[in-house]
């Protein structure tokens, strides 16, 4: 089974802090994704990466950056956390050409106070 793990299930940070969310997948997938999920808004794509050191903006990249130095690891960075970034963050991985089948991690519930 594909396993996607995220560094924390729950995280509480203060406004203005720099926040790192890490995601690791064990299936050698080229594609990796970061989403956030909010009630009433569904899942929204923040960034994705189709290869090491490659990244593309999703629908809501403002206030976020990403890093992919190794194939198995994709990090989401909040440079200066704000309260409107309180959300559930979900990482996923997948195979090129089969984007419809993504494997999601358990999520990180981030609260910014």
């Amino acid at each position, binding site marked *: 089974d594909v396993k996607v793990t995220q560094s924390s299930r729950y995280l509480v940070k203060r406004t203005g802090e720099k926040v790192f969310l890490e995601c690791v997948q064990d299936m050698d997938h080229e594609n990796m994704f970061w*989403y956030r999920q909010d009630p009433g808004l*569904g899942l929204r794509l923040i960034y994705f990466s189709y290869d090491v050191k490659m990244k593309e903006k*999703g629908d809501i990249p403002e206030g976020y950056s990403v890093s992919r130095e190794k194939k198995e690891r994709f990090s989401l960075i909040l440079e200066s956390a704000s309260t409107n970034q309180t959300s559930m963050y979900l990482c996923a991985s997948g195979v090129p050409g089969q*984007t419809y*089948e993504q494997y999601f*991690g358990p999520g990180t519930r981030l609260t910014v106070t």
Partner: protein
Amino acid sequence: LAKTTQPISMDSYEGQEVNITCSHNNIATNDYITWYQQFPSQGPRFIIQGYKTKVTNEVASLFIPADRKSSTLSLPRVSLSDTAVYYCLASGAGSYQLTFGKGTKLSVIP
């Protein structure tokens, strides 16, 4: 914006077959229909994917008519553990992006 429309919620009794319909009037010719399941406090899980006609796996069946304007996810003999949100998505095989709508919250009643 999501290309699909589905009911906000559905209720079903245990042991019944559940059919969740999804409308997608304007999907592209290279779009696949995909369904995901999400339990509370977990990430979505891929259930099934199809292009046309019928696809069946160990979890569900997916019916897509020839005009591809809608599709139906069929869950046979649901149990309480099938209580979840089910998302219908349309995405191109070459696209990186999955666009999730609001999904259908299925509640299975004892």
